[in-house]
Protein backbone atom coordinates (compact mmCIF):
# COMPACT_ATOMS: atom_id res chain seq x y z
CA UNK A 1 0.00 0.00 0.00
CA UNK A 2 1.31 3.39 -0.81
CA UNK A 3 1.66 5.54 2.24
CA UNK A 4 -0.40 8.67 2.46
CA UNK A 5 -0.73 11.09 5.30
CA UNK A 6 -3.38 13.70 5.50
CA UNK A 7 -2.08 17.23 5.11
CA UNK A 8 -2.42 19.48 8.12
CA UNK A 9 -5.26 21.95 8.04
CA UNK A 10 -4.13 25.41 7.02
CA UNK A 11 -4.77 28.02 9.69
CA UNK A 12 -7.98 29.87 8.97
CA UNK A 13 -9.62 26.94 7.14
CA UNK A 14 -12.39 26.68 9.71
CA UNK A 15 -13.20 30.37 9.74
CA UNK A 16 -13.17 30.49 5.96
CA UNK A 17 -15.66 27.63 5.86
CA UNK A 18 -17.80 29.46 8.44
CA UNK A 19 -17.71 32.69 6.43
CA UNK A 20 -18.56 30.91 3.20
CA UNK A 21 -21.57 29.19 4.74
CA UNK A 22 -22.75 32.56 6.06
CA UNK A 23 -22.12 34.07 2.63
CA UNK A 24 -24.25 31.33 1.09
CA UNK A 25 -27.15 32.21 3.38
CA UNK A 26 -26.84 35.93 2.65
CA UNK A 27 -26.54 35.22 -1.08
CA UNK A 28 -29.79 33.21 -1.06
CA UNK A 29 -31.56 35.87 1.03
CA UNK A 30 -30.41 38.62 -1.28
CA UNK A 31 -31.64 36.75 -4.34
CA UNK A 32 -34.99 36.14 -2.72
CA UNK A 33 -35.28 39.52 -1.08
CA UNK A 34 -38.99 40.16 -1.77
CA UNK A 35 -39.80 36.75 -0.30
CA UNK A 36 -37.68 37.60 2.73
CA UNK A 37 -39.52 40.88 3.23
CA UNK A 38 -42.91 39.23 2.94
CA UNK A 39 -41.89 36.53 5.37
CA UNK A 40 -40.62 38.82 8.09
CA UNK A 41 -42.75 41.94 7.97
CA UNK A 42 -46.21 40.89 6.85
CA UNK A 43 -47.33 39.67 10.26
CA UNK A 44 -46.19 42.67 12.36
CA UNK A 45 -47.31 44.95 9.56
CA UNK A 46 -50.88 43.69 9.77
CA UNK A 47 -50.87 43.75 13.57
CA UNK A 48 -49.61 47.31 13.44
CA UNK A 49 -52.15 48.31 10.86
CA UNK A 50 -55.19 46.70 12.52
CA UNK A 51 -54.39 47.45 16.17
CA UNK A 52 -52.52 50.70 15.68
CA UNK A 53 -54.37 52.27 12.81
CA UNK A 54 -57.78 50.68 12.17
CA UNK A 55 -58.90 50.26 15.80
CA UNK A 56 -57.50 53.66 16.75
CA UNK A 57 -59.25 55.38 13.84
CA UNK A 58 -62.52 53.70 14.83
CA UNK A 59 -61.91 54.85 18.42
CA UNK A 60 -61.93 51.32 19.83
CA UNK A 61 -58.57 51.84 21.50
CA UNK A 62 -57.56 54.48 24.00
CA UNK A 63 -55.36 57.35 23.05
CA UNK A 64 -51.75 56.32 23.52
CA UNK A 65 -52.32 52.63 22.88
CA UNK A 66 -50.29 52.88 19.69
CA UNK A 67 -47.29 54.06 21.70
CA UNK A 68 -47.26 50.98 23.87
CA UNK A 69 -48.13 48.65 20.99
CA UNK A 70 -45.25 49.72 18.75
CA UNK A 71 -42.39 48.66 21.07
CA UNK A 72 -44.24 45.37 21.64
CA UNK A 73 -44.45 44.73 17.92
CA UNK A 74 -40.74 45.44 17.55
CA UNK A 75 -40.12 42.79 20.22
CA UNK A 76 -42.42 40.36 18.47
CA UNK A 77 -40.60 40.92 15.17
CA UNK A 78 -37.16 40.51 16.75
CA UNK A 79 -38.03 37.24 18.51
CA UNK A 80 -40.27 35.61 15.90
CA UNK A 81 -38.02 36.44 12.93
CA UNK A 82 -34.99 34.85 14.58
CA UNK A 83 -37.09 31.84 15.55
CA UNK A 84 -38.49 31.38 12.05
CA UNK A 85 -35.06 31.73 10.50
CA UNK A 86 -33.99 28.62 12.42
CA UNK A 87 -36.98 26.44 13.25
CA UNK A 88 -38.47 25.74 9.84
CA UNK A 89 -35.24 25.48 7.83
CA UNK A 90 -33.75 23.16 10.43
CA UNK A 91 -36.75 20.84 10.48
CA UNK A 92 -36.60 20.66 6.69
CA UNK A 93 -32.83 20.34 6.40
CA UNK A 94 -32.49 17.62 8.99
CA UNK A 95 -35.78 15.99 8.05
CA UNK A 96 -36.07 15.72 4.31
CA UNK A 97 -33.96 18.04 2.14
CA UNK A 98 -30.79 16.97 3.99
CA UNK A 99 -29.23 20.15 2.65
CA UNK A 100 -27.32 20.68 5.86
CA UNK A 101 -25.17 17.60 5.23
CA UNK A 102 -22.86 19.38 2.82
CA UNK A 103 -22.20 22.02 5.47
CA UNK A 104 -21.76 19.47 8.24
CA UNK A 105 -19.06 17.85 6.10
CA UNK A 106 -17.24 21.13 5.50
CA UNK A 107 -13.87 21.43 7.26
CA UNK A 108 -15.11 23.12 10.43
CA UNK A 109 -16.37 21.93 13.81
CA UNK A 110 -20.06 21.03 14.01
CA UNK A 111 -20.54 23.87 16.51
CA UNK A 112 -19.57 26.36 13.79
CA UNK A 113 -22.45 25.16 11.61
CA UNK A 114 -24.83 25.80 14.50
CA UNK A 115 -23.17 29.13 15.29
CA UNK A 116 -23.53 30.24 11.67
CA UNK A 117 -27.23 29.41 11.79
CA UNK A 118 -27.64 31.47 14.96
CA UNK A 119 -25.66 34.40 13.58
CA UNK A 120 -27.68 34.37 10.37
CA UNK A 121 -30.92 34.30 12.39
CA UNK A 122 -29.69 37.34 14.34
CA UNK A 123 -28.92 39.25 11.16
CA UNK A 124 -32.39 38.50 9.78
CA UNK A 125 -33.94 39.52 13.05
CA UNK A 126 -32.04 42.84 13.17
CA UNK A 127 -32.94 43.61 9.56
CA UNK A 128 -36.63 42.85 10.10
CA UNK A 129 -36.84 44.84 13.32
CA UNK A 130 -35.13 47.88 11.80
CA UNK A 131 -37.40 47.72 8.75
CA UNK A 132 -40.36 48.05 11.16
CA UNK A 133 -39.25 51.55 12.12
CA UNK A 134 -39.89 53.26 8.74
CA UNK A 135 -43.01 51.13 8.31
CA UNK A 136 -44.25 52.34 11.69
CA UNK A 137 -43.66 55.94 10.71
CA UNK A 138 -45.48 55.34 7.44
CA UNK A 139 -48.55 53.74 9.01
CA UNK A 140 -48.81 55.56 12.30
CA UNK A 141 -47.48 58.95 11.22
CA UNK A 142 -45.02 59.00 14.11
CA UNK A 143 -43.44 56.43 16.42
CA UNK A 144 -42.23 56.69 19.99
CA UNK A 145 -38.46 57.09 19.89
CA UNK A 146 -35.98 58.16 22.55
CA UNK A 147 -32.25 58.27 21.87
CA UNK A 148 -31.63 58.12 25.60
CA UNK A 149 -33.18 54.67 25.57
CA UNK A 150 -31.08 53.47 22.63
CA UNK A 151 -28.49 51.42 24.61
CA UNK A 152 -31.30 49.54 26.35
CA UNK A 153 -33.11 49.13 23.03
CA UNK A 154 -29.97 47.66 21.45
CA UNK A 155 -29.30 45.29 24.34
CA UNK A 156 -32.89 44.06 24.32
CA UNK A 157 -32.79 43.66 20.54
CA UNK A 158 -29.69 41.43 20.66
CA UNK A 159 -31.01 39.41 23.59
CA UNK A 160 -34.47 39.15 22.01
CA UNK A 161 -33.01 37.87 18.76
CA UNK A 162 -30.88 35.40 20.71
CA UNK A 163 -33.95 34.19 22.60
CA UNK A 164 -35.72 33.67 19.27
CA UNK A 165 -32.68 31.88 17.86
CA UNK A 166 -32.55 29.65 20.93
CA UNK A 167 -36.24 28.75 20.54
CA UNK A 168 -35.68 28.13 16.83
CA UNK A 169 -32.69 25.87 17.43
CA UNK A 170 -34.65 23.96 20.05
CA UNK A 171 -37.75 23.49 17.93
CA UNK A 172 -35.86 22.90 14.71
CA UNK A 173 -33.91 20.02 16.18
CA UNK A 174 -36.59 18.50 18.41
CA UNK A 175 -39.61 18.56 16.14
CA UNK A 176 -40.05 15.72 13.65
CA UNK A 177 -40.93 16.80 10.10
CA UNK A 178 -44.39 15.24 10.28
CA UNK A 179 -45.16 17.37 13.34
CA UNK A 180 -44.31 20.68 11.76
CA UNK A 181 -47.94 21.87 11.59
CA UNK A 182 -48.33 20.98 15.24
CA UNK A 183 -45.31 23.14 16.00
CA UNK A 184 -47.09 26.05 14.45
CA UNK A 185 -50.31 25.78 16.41
CA UNK A 186 -49.00 24.47 19.72
CA UNK A 187 -45.88 26.56 20.14
CA UNK A 188 -45.88 29.44 17.74
CA UNK A 189 -49.29 30.91 18.36
CA UNK A 190 -49.19 30.79 22.20
CA UNK A 191 -45.70 32.30 22.13
CA UNK A 192 -46.97 35.05 19.89
CA UNK A 193 -49.85 36.10 22.14
CA UNK A 194 -48.34 35.61 25.60
CA UNK A 195 -45.30 37.81 24.90
CA UNK A 196 -46.85 41.09 26.08
CA UNK A 197 -46.41 42.66 22.67
CA UNK A 198 -50.03 43.93 22.56
CA UNK A 199 -50.34 44.92 26.25
CA UNK A 200 -47.95 46.04 29.01
CA UNK A 201 -47.25 43.43 31.66
CA UNK A 202 -48.02 45.49 34.84
CA UNK A 203 -51.52 46.24 33.51
CA UNK A 204 -52.27 42.52 33.74
CA UNK A 205 -52.71 42.90 37.51
CA UNK A 206 -56.42 42.55 36.89
CA UNK A 207 -55.88 39.18 35.20
CA UNK A 208 -53.52 37.53 37.64
CA UNK A 209 -53.33 34.05 36.11
CA UNK A 210 -52.54 35.44 32.66
CA UNK A 211 -49.91 37.68 34.17
CA UNK A 212 -48.19 34.58 35.52
CA UNK A 213 -48.44 32.83 32.16
CA UNK A 214 -46.92 35.79 30.35
CA UNK A 215 -44.12 36.02 32.90
CA UNK A 216 -43.00 32.59 31.71
CA UNK A 217 -42.58 33.77 28.12
CA UNK A 218 -39.15 35.34 27.56
CA UNK A 219 -40.62 37.52 24.83
CA UNK A 220 -42.46 39.43 27.56
CA UNK A 221 -39.14 40.77 28.82
CA UNK A 222 -38.13 41.91 25.35
CA UNK A 223 -41.43 43.80 24.95
CA UNK A 224 -41.08 45.32 28.41
CA UNK A 225 -37.44 46.32 27.86
CA UNK A 226 -38.39 47.99 24.58
CA UNK A 227 -41.14 49.91 26.41
CA UNK A 228 -38.63 50.87 29.06
CA UNK A 229 -36.37 52.20 26.33
CA UNK A 230 -38.93 53.92 24.11
CA UNK A 231 -41.97 54.80 26.27
CA UNK A 232 -40.72 54.91 29.89
CA UNK A 233 -43.90 56.67 31.01
CA UNK A 234 -45.93 53.52 30.42
CA UNK A 235 -45.67 51.25 33.47
CA UNK A 236 -43.22 48.43 32.64
CA UNK A 237 -41.02 45.81 34.25
CA UNK A 238 -37.72 47.22 35.48
CA UNK A 239 -35.17 47.09 32.62
CA UNK A 240 -32.51 45.39 34.75
CA UNK A 241 -34.97 42.60 35.60
CA UNK A 242 -35.70 42.19 31.89
CA UNK A 243 -32.03 41.96 31.00
CA UNK A 244 -31.21 39.47 33.75
CA UNK A 245 -34.12 37.22 32.82
CA UNK A 246 -33.21 37.44 29.14
CA UNK A 247 -29.57 36.58 29.71
CA UNK A 248 -30.67 33.57 31.73
CA UNK A 249 -33.20 32.52 29.07
CA UNK A 250 -30.62 32.87 26.29
CA UNK A 251 -28.18 30.73 28.25
CA UNK A 252 -30.71 27.95 28.82
CA UNK A 253 -32.24 27.99 25.33
CA UNK A 254 -28.93 28.05 23.48
CA UNK A 255 -27.44 25.31 25.65
CA UNK A 256 -30.38 22.98 25.16
CA UNK A 257 -30.76 24.00 21.50
CA UNK A 258 -27.10 23.29 20.75
CA UNK A 259 -27.37 19.92 22.40
CA UNK A 260 -30.34 19.15 20.14
CA UNK A 261 -28.34 20.31 17.13
CA UNK A 262 -25.45 18.01 18.01
CA UNK A 263 -27.81 15.10 18.43
CA UNK A 264 -29.22 15.61 14.96
CA UNK A 265 -25.88 16.37 13.33
CA UNK A 266 -23.96 13.41 14.72
CA UNK A 267 -25.72 10.13 15.23
Amino acid at each position, binding site marked *: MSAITAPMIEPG*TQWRAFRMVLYRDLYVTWREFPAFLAQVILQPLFLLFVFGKVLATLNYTQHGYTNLLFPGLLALTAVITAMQALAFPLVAEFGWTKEIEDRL*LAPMPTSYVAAEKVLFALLRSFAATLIMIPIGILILGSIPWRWAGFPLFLAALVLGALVGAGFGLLMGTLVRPERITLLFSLVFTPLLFTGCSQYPWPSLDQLRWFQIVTACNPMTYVSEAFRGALVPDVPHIQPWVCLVVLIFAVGVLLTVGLRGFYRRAID
Partner: protein
Amino acid sequence: MSGELLHEGCAVETIDLVKRYPKSPANAVDGVSFAAAAGEVFGLLGPNGAGKTTTVGMLTTRVRPTAGAARIGGVDVMRDPVRARAQLAVVPQQSNLDRSISIRDNLIFHAAYHGVPAREREERADELLDQFGLLDRARDKPDFFSGGQSQRVMIARALMHAPQVLFLDEPTTGLDPAARLFVWDRLRELRDSDVTLILTTHDMDEAALLADRVGIMDHGHLLALDTPEALMRSLEGEGTLELAADRPADGAVVDALAALDGVDRVETVHAAAENGAPGAPPPSADSQPLRVRLYLTGDAALLVAPAAAVLTEHGLALQDVKLGAVTLEDVFIHLTGRTLR
Protein backbone atom coordinates in the same frame (compact mmCIF):
# COMPACT_ATOMS: atom_id res chain seq x y z
CA MET B 1 -3.14 -7.66 -0.03
CA SER B 2 -6.07 -9.16 1.81
CA GLY B 3 -5.86 -9.86 5.49
CA GLU B 4 -2.94 -7.53 5.95
CA LEU B 5 -3.78 -4.41 7.88
CA LEU B 6 -1.27 -1.65 7.64
CA HIS B 7 -1.76 0.65 10.57
CA GLU B 8 0.20 3.46 9.00
CA GLY B 9 -0.46 5.18 5.74
CA CYS B 10 -3.71 3.65 4.49
CA ALA B 11 -6.22 5.96 2.93
CA VAL B 12 -9.04 4.47 4.96
CA GLU B 13 -8.85 2.24 7.98
CA THR B 14 -11.28 0.89 10.54
CA ILE B 15 -10.23 -1.08 13.59
CA ASP B 16 -12.82 -3.12 15.49
CA LEU B 17 -15.42 -0.50 14.73
CA VAL B 18 -18.63 -0.90 16.72
CA LYS B 19 -21.87 1.09 16.62
CA ARG B 20 -24.67 0.34 18.99
CA TYR B 21 -27.80 2.45 18.91
CA PRO B 22 -29.67 2.97 22.16
CA LYS B 23 -32.68 0.65 22.50
CA SER B 24 -31.39 -1.61 19.74
CA PRO B 25 -30.94 -5.26 20.70
CA ALA B 26 -27.94 -5.82 18.43
CA ASN B 27 -24.95 -3.80 17.29
CA ALA B 28 -25.57 -2.08 13.95
CA VAL B 29 -21.86 -2.48 13.24
CA ASP B 30 -20.12 -5.15 15.23
CA GLY B 31 -16.34 -5.10 15.19
CA VAL B 32 -15.53 -4.23 11.59
CA SER B 33 -11.88 -3.93 10.57
CA PHE B 34 -10.55 -3.20 7.11
CA ALA B 35 -8.08 -0.98 5.35
CA ALA B 36 -8.08 0.50 1.88
CA ALA B 37 -4.99 1.76 0.11
CA ALA B 38 -4.71 5.05 -1.72
CA GLY B 39 -6.29 4.75 -5.15
CA GLU B 40 -8.10 1.55 -4.28
CA VAL B 41 -11.77 0.98 -5.05
CA PHE B 42 -13.19 -0.75 -2.03
CA GLY B 43 -16.71 -2.15 -2.10
CA LEU B 44 -18.89 -2.92 0.90
CA LEU B 45 -21.50 -5.40 -0.25
CA GLY B 46 -24.50 -6.48 1.76
CA PRO B 47 -28.27 -6.29 2.03
CA ASN B 48 -30.09 -3.26 3.44
CA GLY B 49 -29.50 -3.03 7.16
CA ALA B 50 -26.18 -4.90 7.02
CA GLY B 51 -24.36 -1.93 8.58
CA LYS B 52 -22.68 -0.57 5.46
CA THR B 53 -24.13 2.93 5.68
CA THR B 54 -23.47 3.10 9.42
CA THR B 55 -19.84 2.09 8.80
CA VAL B 56 -19.50 4.82 6.21
CA GLY B 57 -21.27 7.24 8.57
CA MET B 58 -18.60 6.62 11.19
CA LEU B 59 -15.79 7.06 8.66
CA THR B 60 -17.29 10.33 7.48
CA THR B 61 -17.65 11.84 11.00
CA ARG B 62 -21.46 11.74 10.97
CA VAL B 63 -21.94 8.75 13.26
CA ARG B 64 -20.13 8.49 16.58
CA PRO B 65 -18.56 5.03 17.04
CA THR B 66 -19.43 3.15 20.22
CA ALA B 67 -15.99 1.50 20.16
CA GLY B 68 -13.04 1.05 17.87
CA ALA B 69 -11.34 3.53 15.60
CA ALA B 70 -11.78 4.93 12.12
CA ARG B 71 -9.08 6.78 10.23
CA ILE B 72 -8.92 8.74 7.03
CA GLY B 73 -5.40 9.29 5.74
CA GLY B 74 -4.10 8.35 9.16
CA VAL B 75 -6.33 10.92 10.89
CA ASP B 76 -8.62 9.63 13.62
CA VAL B 77 -12.05 10.87 12.59
CA MET B 78 -13.31 11.30 16.13
CA ARG B 79 -10.22 13.05 17.44
CA ASP B 80 -9.76 15.39 14.49
CA PRO B 81 -12.98 15.49 12.48
CA VAL B 82 -12.14 18.79 10.79
CA ARG B 83 -8.95 17.44 9.28
CA ALA B 84 -10.73 14.26 8.27
CA ARG B 85 -13.54 16.22 6.59
CA ALA B 86 -11.04 18.25 4.59
CA GLN B 87 -9.95 15.17 2.66
CA LEU B 88 -13.15 13.22 2.22
CA ALA B 89 -16.30 13.65 0.19
CA VAL B 90 -19.61 11.86 0.39
CA VAL B 91 -22.14 11.06 -2.30
CA PRO B 92 -25.23 9.98 -0.36
CA GLN B 93 -28.00 7.74 -1.56
CA GLN B 94 -30.65 10.44 -1.26
CA SER B 95 -30.12 13.82 -2.86
CA ASN B 96 -28.92 16.46 -0.42
CA LEU B 97 -28.30 19.18 -2.98
CA ASP B 98 -28.91 22.77 -1.96
CA ARG B 99 -32.31 23.50 -3.48
CA SER B 100 -32.12 27.26 -3.15
CA ILE B 101 -29.28 27.66 -5.63
CA SER B 102 -28.39 26.42 -9.11
CA ILE B 103 -26.36 23.26 -9.57
CA ARG B 104 -23.36 25.32 -10.66
CA ASP B 105 -23.65 27.30 -7.43
CA ASN B 106 -23.97 24.00 -5.56
CA LEU B 107 -20.55 23.03 -6.91
CA ILE B 108 -19.02 26.45 -6.35
CA PHE B 109 -20.25 26.86 -2.76
CA HIS B 110 -19.11 23.36 -1.87
CA ALA B 111 -15.62 24.24 -3.09
CA ALA B 112 -15.79 27.55 -1.22
CA TYR B 113 -16.59 25.74 2.06
CA HIS B 114 -13.45 23.70 1.42
CA GLY B 115 -11.30 26.75 0.73
CA VAL B 116 -10.79 26.38 -3.03
CA PRO B 117 -9.82 29.83 -4.40
CA ALA B 118 -12.55 31.74 -6.26
CA ARG B 119 -11.14 31.54 -9.78
CA GLU B 120 -10.20 27.89 -9.45
CA ARG B 121 -13.64 26.88 -8.22
CA GLU B 122 -15.36 28.56 -11.16
CA GLU B 123 -13.10 26.83 -13.69
CA ARG B 124 -13.38 23.51 -11.95
CA ALA B 125 -17.17 23.72 -11.76
CA ASP B 126 -17.45 24.29 -15.50
CA GLU B 127 -14.99 21.49 -16.20
CA LEU B 128 -16.89 19.00 -14.07
CA LEU B 129 -20.31 20.07 -15.32
CA ASP B 130 -19.02 19.49 -18.84
CA GLN B 131 -17.56 16.11 -17.95
CA PHE B 132 -20.82 15.04 -16.34
CA GLY B 133 -22.92 16.25 -19.24
CA LEU B 134 -24.62 18.98 -17.20
CA LEU B 135 -23.23 22.15 -18.72
CA ASP B 136 -26.46 23.11 -20.46
CA ARG B 137 -28.35 22.82 -17.17
CA ALA B 138 -25.79 24.62 -15.03
CA ARG B 139 -28.20 27.41 -14.09
CA ASP B 140 -31.11 25.14 -13.15
CA LYS B 141 -32.06 24.43 -9.57
CA PRO B 142 -31.86 20.83 -8.31
CA ASP B 143 -35.63 20.52 -7.90
CA PHE B 144 -36.02 19.89 -11.61
CA PHE B 145 -33.49 17.08 -11.74
CA SER B 146 -34.17 13.35 -12.03
CA GLY B 147 -32.56 10.87 -9.67
CA GLY B 148 -29.81 10.06 -12.16
CA GLN B 149 -29.06 13.71 -12.83
CA SER B 150 -28.95 14.54 -9.11
CA GLN B 151 -26.54 11.66 -8.65
CA ARG B 152 -24.28 13.09 -11.33
CA VAL B 153 -24.43 16.55 -9.76
CA MET B 154 -23.55 15.12 -6.36
CA ILE B 155 -20.55 13.22 -7.72
CA ALA B 156 -19.38 16.35 -9.53
CA ARG B 157 -19.86 18.37 -6.34
CA ALA B 158 -17.90 15.82 -4.32
CA LEU B 159 -14.96 16.14 -6.71
CA MET B 160 -14.84 19.94 -6.45
CA HIS B 161 -12.38 20.00 -3.56
CA ALA B 162 -10.25 17.15 -4.94
CA PRO B 163 -10.83 14.79 -2.00
CA GLN B 164 -8.44 11.95 -1.18
CA VAL B 165 -11.29 9.62 -0.34
CA LEU B 166 -14.70 9.53 -1.98
CA PHE B 167 -17.56 7.68 -0.30
CA LEU B 168 -20.47 6.60 -2.47
CA ASP B 169 -23.55 5.17 -0.79
CA GLU B 170 -25.52 2.97 -3.21
CA PRO B 171 -24.49 5.20 -6.12
CA THR B 172 -26.80 3.66 -8.72
CA THR B 173 -29.76 2.41 -6.68
CA GLY B 174 -32.95 3.55 -8.34
CA LEU B 175 -31.28 4.77 -11.52
CA ASP B 176 -32.41 3.71 -14.96
CA PRO B 177 -29.94 1.51 -16.92
CA ALA B 178 -28.51 4.34 -19.01
CA ALA B 179 -27.92 6.59 -15.99
CA ARG B 180 -26.38 3.66 -14.20
CA LEU B 181 -23.90 2.98 -17.01
CA PHE B 182 -23.00 6.67 -17.11
CA VAL B 183 -22.22 6.70 -13.38
CA TRP B 184 -20.22 3.49 -13.68
CA ASP B 185 -18.15 4.99 -16.51
CA ARG B 186 -17.37 8.09 -14.45
CA LEU B 187 -16.40 5.96 -11.46
CA ARG B 188 -14.13 3.84 -13.63
CA GLU B 189 -12.42 7.02 -14.79
CA LEU B 190 -11.94 8.01 -11.17
CA ARG B 191 -10.31 4.68 -10.48
CA ASP B 192 -7.46 5.73 -12.74
CA SER B 193 -6.83 8.79 -10.59
CA ASP B 194 -5.40 8.52 -7.09
CA VAL B 195 -8.75 8.95 -5.37
CA THR B 196 -9.72 6.15 -3.03
CA LEU B 197 -13.31 5.08 -3.59
CA ILE B 198 -15.37 3.47 -0.86
CA LEU B 199 -18.51 2.12 -2.40
CA THR B 200 -21.45 0.63 -0.54
CA THR B 201 -23.88 -1.38 -2.57
CA HIS B 202 -26.30 -4.25 -2.45
CA ASP B 203 -25.74 -4.77 -6.16
CA MET B 204 -23.32 -7.62 -6.76
CA ASP B 205 -22.73 -6.60 -10.41
CA GLU B 206 -21.72 -3.13 -9.32
CA ALA B 207 -19.35 -4.51 -6.71
CA ALA B 208 -17.80 -7.06 -9.10
CA LEU B 209 -17.46 -4.52 -11.88
CA LEU B 210 -16.00 -1.58 -10.00
CA ALA B 211 -14.28 -2.79 -6.85
CA ASP B 212 -10.69 -3.91 -6.51
CA ARG B 213 -11.67 -5.59 -3.27
CA VAL B 214 -15.03 -6.37 -1.77
CA GLY B 215 -16.00 -6.71 1.86
CA ILE B 216 -19.17 -8.69 2.40
CA MET B 217 -21.26 -7.45 5.33
CA ASP B 218 -24.27 -8.87 7.08
CA HIS B 219 -25.81 -8.10 10.49
CA GLY B 220 -22.99 -5.66 11.26
CA HIS B 221 -20.20 -8.15 10.61
CA LEU B 222 -17.62 -8.21 7.87
CA LEU B 223 -17.90 -11.82 6.74
CA ALA B 224 -15.30 -11.91 3.98
CA LEU B 225 -12.88 -9.54 2.34
CA ASP B 226 -10.98 -10.14 -0.88
CA THR B 227 -10.89 -9.37 -4.58
CA PRO B 228 -14.14 -10.29 -6.35
CA GLU B 229 -12.27 -12.98 -8.30
CA ALA B 230 -10.80 -14.55 -5.20
CA LEU B 231 -14.17 -14.49 -3.43
CA MET B 232 -15.84 -16.23 -6.34
CA ARG B 233 -12.95 -18.68 -6.71
CA SER B 234 -13.40 -19.62 -3.08
CA LEU B 235 -16.59 -21.43 -4.00
CA GLU B 236 -14.59 -23.64 -6.35
CA GLY B 237 -17.48 -24.53 -8.59
CA GLU B 238 -17.60 -24.17 -12.33
CA GLY B 239 -21.21 -23.24 -12.38
CA THR B 240 -24.46 -23.22 -10.50
CA LEU B 241 -27.85 -24.74 -11.04
CA GLU B 242 -30.78 -23.25 -9.17
CA LEU B 243 -33.92 -25.32 -8.81
CA ALA B 244 -37.31 -24.34 -7.49
CA ALA B 245 -40.01 -26.84 -6.63
CA ASP B 246 -43.71 -26.32 -6.07
CA ARG B 247 -43.78 -27.36 -2.43
CA PRO B 248 -41.65 -27.38 0.70
CA ALA B 249 -39.50 -30.46 1.14
CA ASP B 250 -37.41 -32.14 3.82
CA GLY B 251 -33.67 -32.64 4.01
CA ALA B 252 -33.80 -35.97 2.17
CA VAL B 253 -34.23 -34.19 -1.16
CA VAL B 254 -31.26 -31.96 -0.49
CA ASP B 255 -29.17 -35.00 0.47
CA ALA B 256 -30.21 -36.81 -2.69
CA LEU B 257 -29.30 -33.80 -4.83
CA ALA B 258 -25.96 -33.46 -3.09
CA ALA B 259 -25.23 -37.11 -3.86
CA LEU B 260 -25.56 -36.56 -7.61
CA ASP B 261 -22.44 -36.88 -9.69
CA GLY B 262 -20.90 -33.46 -10.44
CA VAL B 263 -22.56 -31.69 -7.51
CA ASP B 264 -20.08 -30.10 -5.15
CA ARG B 265 -22.42 -28.57 -2.65
CA VAL B 266 -26.09 -27.71 -2.19
CA GLU B 267 -27.34 -24.51 -0.56
CA THR B 268 -30.94 -23.99 0.39
CA VAL B 269 -31.91 -20.48 -0.67
CA HIS B 270 -34.13 -18.44 1.60
CA ALA B 271 -35.75 -15.23 0.63
CA ALA B 272 -34.00 -12.22 2.14
CA ALA B 273 -35.14 -11.41 5.63
CA GLU B 274 -37.41 -8.39 5.89
CA ASN B 275 -35.05 -5.52 5.08
CA GLY B 276 -32.27 -7.67 6.44
CA ALA B 277 -33.16 -6.42 9.90
CA PRO B 278 -30.29 -7.22 12.23
CA GLY B 279 -31.05 -10.13 14.48
CA ALA B 280 -34.01 -11.38 12.44
CA PRO B 281 -33.70 -15.10 11.81
CA PRO B 282 -34.01 -16.31 8.21
CA PRO B 283 -37.52 -17.54 7.46
CA SER B 284 -37.97 -21.20 8.22
CA ALA B 285 -37.11 -23.52 5.34
CA ASP B 286 -40.14 -25.70 6.02
CA SER B 287 -42.62 -22.96 5.32
CA GLN B 288 -41.35 -22.09 1.85
CA PRO B 289 -41.41 -24.09 -1.38
CA LEU B 290 -38.07 -25.77 -1.91
CA ARG B 291 -35.44 -23.60 -3.58
CA VAL B 292 -31.88 -24.88 -3.81
CA ARG B 293 -28.70 -23.84 -5.50
CA LEU B 294 -26.32 -26.59 -6.63
CA TYR B 295 -22.64 -25.72 -6.94
CA LEU B 296 -21.19 -27.91 -9.65
CA THR B 297 -17.84 -29.23 -10.65
CA GLY B 298 -19.02 -29.96 -14.17
CA ASP B 299 -21.38 -28.74 -16.87
CA ALA B 300 -24.65 -27.38 -15.46
CA ALA B 301 -26.75 -28.38 -18.50
CA LEU B 302 -25.92 -32.07 -18.00
CA LEU B 303 -27.31 -32.02 -14.49
CA VAL B 304 -30.76 -30.61 -15.22
CA ALA B 305 -32.30 -33.99 -16.09
CA PRO B 306 -30.85 -35.97 -13.15
CA ALA B 307 -31.78 -33.21 -10.70
CA ALA B 308 -35.32 -33.05 -12.05
CA ALA B 309 -35.54 -36.81 -11.66
CA VAL B 310 -34.57 -36.56 -7.97
CA LEU B 311 -37.34 -34.04 -7.37
CA THR B 312 -39.89 -36.27 -9.13
CA GLU B 313 -38.79 -39.24 -7.01
CA HIS B 314 -39.62 -37.20 -3.92
CA GLY B 315 -43.00 -36.21 -5.28
CA LEU B 316 -42.05 -32.64 -6.16
CA ALA B 317 -42.64 -30.84 -9.43
CA LEU B 318 -39.88 -28.70 -10.90
CA GLN B 319 -41.04 -25.10 -11.30
CA ASP B 320 -37.97 -23.12 -12.24
CA VAL B 321 -34.42 -23.81 -13.39
CA LYS B 322 -31.58 -21.32 -13.59
CA LEU B 323 -28.11 -22.08 -14.91
CA GLY B 324 -25.27 -19.75 -14.06
CA ALA B 325 -21.66 -19.07 -13.26
CA VAL B 326 -20.63 -18.30 -9.70
CA THR B 327 -21.31 -14.67 -8.79
CA LEU B 328 -20.73 -12.57 -5.72
CA GLU B 329 -24.32 -13.28 -4.82
CA ASP B 330 -23.44 -16.97 -4.55
CA VAL B 331 -20.63 -16.02 -2.21
CA PHE B 332 -23.12 -14.06 -0.16
CA ILE B 333 -25.59 -16.96 -0.08
CA HIS B 334 -22.79 -19.28 0.89
CA LEU B 335 -21.83 -17.00 3.78
CA THR B 336 -25.30 -16.12 5.04
CA GLY B 337 -27.75 -18.63 3.59
CA ARG B 338 -29.82 -15.78 2.18
CA THR B 339 -30.12 -13.87 -1.05
CA LEU B 340 -29.04 -10.25 -1.22
CA ARG B 341 -32.45 -8.85 -1.99
